[in-house]
């Protein structure tokens, strides 16, 4: 990617990137649509050979694997090859661990050196998706990836939240976690609605999506001189910026048959010819709307967000001059249309602009908690770059045939997940002995809570994002490398948690792969699991939990607790001071939540352990 590493504070030849050797020695397994192996992002320049433990295979017919791309497999539905026919897998693999490629851009935009988050980590590709992703193939891929010897598994795919014993990704991830493999998964694209998460088991890193501070700006200039900034990847240099008449098929909101989404029905509307057409987001992909407008004779398209998308705009590779404007500006545009009998507009293409101070802001599509399967675990865990991300692609979106260095700009939690997989690889390289839970904890307790303007991270409406929207916050790789304390969880710690979910012995046994007897096990509430965040359901009773932290910072260190109470809940912590005398020492504390009055409104708080050097923060989401 050409900007997100810098946005994450990763700079070549300095800081955490250098300290972590760019992810050297770590193997990231990517379950996706396969890979375009000849892309320069997968060159092995500067790469060491794979670790001795690597047992994977390269199932391409030609010798295209190398020290970067160390494995590539396909399964039942893989069309007989690990080759990527859709580009999605090439994009996610490049984002996680692509090598440096100078001069990457699409239509000249987002230009820069494309590089993955862990550029010296190895990639093992497991093709599990073509038109969809079959569970039998996903399970087979996780099964062999565990044997192959991967360290991180990256899954930009999923379904809805179901009990973990019926969730095949959760089952595979549990086995992987038991063997020390961190599993990073997309949270899903069903936001901004609540309880829409996928991949929400506590042994999975659940990743939501946020913006970066880059815009590919395409401004709609109205006849009244008002300028509405939007985004588009396609910005033709030969566009003549004269005023064109505007046409909005959805202007009459009472006409439910109107083609406001610019579907193929637009082809039958003669008023489109020679005009800039206003289309609403939804129903079909943005580029398909543009294709329809062009086919109907339109000269341009302004795509307006609904209230649901808010300020999350996309830079798409349209086939005609176009822009995607936010909901607020869409209302201004409609007000202008209604103010005049002959509305006109044009475009002013401004190219790539860095410095959006609202970034990172949570994307409208990013799925939200609370978790349906386990509301006592705060999910998503974390957010990372997932909007308008440039990365490797299997073919040219510019119809260019003279290069293998093809790139594309895509958005989704599919794009944020591999960013976090890459960060996990950097942490694994820097701290080989850290467990998957320790790596998760390090990322979560050090995450950023403010945007570039130093205001609280916002959601798609530019309102402060709540904890079920952003989890612990936006990943900060350098801080995660030195978290001070970690909340570790061993595989056996999940047994009382699973029994506490009231699963039957057989259901728990299915996850553990051995007989379980919950009557003989201790049974804990979800919130008692030693998780780095809190999600509590407040009733009338007092709730008390114990957490254990491990000192991974300076040997002699004293931490004091700082509590930001959720509204209506009294939070007390004992002891209030933790004094460590050695590294890896574990100390426990009790946290008690006491409702102050009948509790009706969800609210957020936090608990932070601070020392002279470290700040270890756990968010607290309270809901009635």
């Amino acid at each position, binding site marked *: 990617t050409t900007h997100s590493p810098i946005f994450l504070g990763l700079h070549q030849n300095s800081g955490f990137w250098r300290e972590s050797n760019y992810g050297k020695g770590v193997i990231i397994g990517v379950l*996706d*649509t396969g890979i375009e192996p000849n892309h320069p992002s997968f060159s092995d320049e500067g790469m060491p050979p794979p670790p001795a433990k690597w047992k994977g295979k390269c199932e391409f017919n030609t010798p295209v694997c190398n020290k970067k791309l160390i494995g590539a497999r396909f*399964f*039942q539905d893989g069309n007989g090859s690990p080759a990527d026919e859709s580009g*999605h897998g090439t994009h996610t693999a490049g984002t996680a661990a692509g090598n440096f490629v100078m001069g990457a851009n699409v239509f000249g935009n987002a230009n820069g050196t494309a590089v993955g988050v862990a550029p010296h980590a190895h990639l093992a590709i497991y093709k599990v*998706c073509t038109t*969809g*992703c*079959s*569970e*039998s193939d*996903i*399970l*087979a891929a*996780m*099964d062999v990836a*565990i*044997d192959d010897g991967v360290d991180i598994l990256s899954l*930009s*795919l*999923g*379904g809805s939240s179901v009990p973990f014993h*019926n969730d*095949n*990704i959760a*089952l*595979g991830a549990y*086995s*992987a976690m038991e*063997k020390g493999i961190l599993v990073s998964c*997309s*949270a*899903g*694209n069903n936001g901004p609605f609540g309880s829409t998460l*996928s991949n929400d088991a506590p042994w999975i890193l659940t990743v939501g999506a946020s913006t970066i501070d880059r815009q590919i700006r395409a401004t709609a200039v109205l006849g009244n001189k008002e300028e509405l900034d939007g985004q588009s990847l396609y910005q033709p240099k030969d566009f003549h910026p004269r005023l064109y008449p505007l046409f909005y098929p959805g202007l009459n909101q009472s006409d439910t048959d109107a083609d406001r989404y610019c579907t193929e029905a637009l082809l039958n509307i003669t008023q489109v010819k020679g005009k800039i057409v206003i289309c609403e987001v939804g129903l079909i992909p943005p580029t398909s709307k543009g294709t329809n407008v062009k086919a109907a004779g339109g000269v341009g398209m302004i795509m307006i967000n609904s209230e649901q998308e808010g300020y999350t705009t996309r830079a798409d590779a349209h086939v005609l001059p176009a822009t995607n404007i936010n909901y607020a500006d869409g209302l201004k545009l409609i007000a202008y249309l209604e103010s005049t009998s002959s509305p006109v507009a044009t475009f002013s293409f401004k190219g790539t602009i860095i410095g959006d101070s609202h970034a990172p802001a949570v994307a409208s599509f990013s799925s939200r908690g609370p978790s349906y399967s386990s509301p006592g675990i705060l999910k998503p865990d974390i957010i990372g770059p997932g909007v308008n991300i440039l990365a490797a692609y299997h073919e040219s979106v510019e119809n260019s045939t003279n290069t293998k260095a093809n790139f594309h700009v895509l958005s*989704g*939690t*599919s794009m944020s*997940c591999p960013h976090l997989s890459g960060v996990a690889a950097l942490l694994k390289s820097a701290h080989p002995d850290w467990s998957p839970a320790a790596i998760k904890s390090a990322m979560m307790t050090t995450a950023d809570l403010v945007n570039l303007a130093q205001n609280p991270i916002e959601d798609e409406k530019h309102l402060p994002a709540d904890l079920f929207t952003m989890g612990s916050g936006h990943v900060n790789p350098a801080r995660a490398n030195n978290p001070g304390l970690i909340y570790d969880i061993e595989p056996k710690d999940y047994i009382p948690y699973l029994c506490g979910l009231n699963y039957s012995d*057989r259901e728990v*046994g*299915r996850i553990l*792969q051995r007989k379980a007897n919950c009557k003989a096990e201790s049974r804990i509430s979800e919130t008692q699991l030693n998780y780095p965040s809190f999600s509590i359901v407040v009733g009338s009773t007092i709730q008390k939990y114990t957490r254990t932290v491990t000192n991974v910072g300076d040997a002699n260190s004293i931490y004091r607790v700082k509590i930001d109470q959720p509204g209506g809940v009294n939070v007390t912590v004992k002891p209030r001071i933790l004094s460590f005398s050695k590294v890896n020492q574990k100390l426990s504390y009790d946290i008690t939540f006491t409702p102050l009055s009948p509790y009706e409104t969800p609210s957020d708080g936090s608990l932070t352990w601070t020392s002279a050097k470290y700040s270890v923060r756990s968010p607290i989401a309270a809901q009635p």
Partner: protein
Amino acid sequence: SANLETYIVHVELPESYTQLSTSSISSPNEDLDSWYNSFLPTTIASTNEAPRMVYCYHNVFKGFSAKLSAEDVKVMEKKPGFLSARPQRMLSLH
């Protein structure tokens, strides 16, 4: 074959897993695969029926995926060690 769907089948190891081994030279995974296959309907070689087993799982859980009909599953349910079977879901990219 039109009635066949890919099912994900969970099974439970017998009390004494070591007794599964029929040959001293077979590997633990071969033993497991052989046991998984014992759940499948007997195929008749002369009909050129396609193999029913899709994958044998060794790490993610004890079980396999196979092309089965609803009737096959009903028969399988009666076998010792059977836990559950359900048609696989198609998940989507995010």
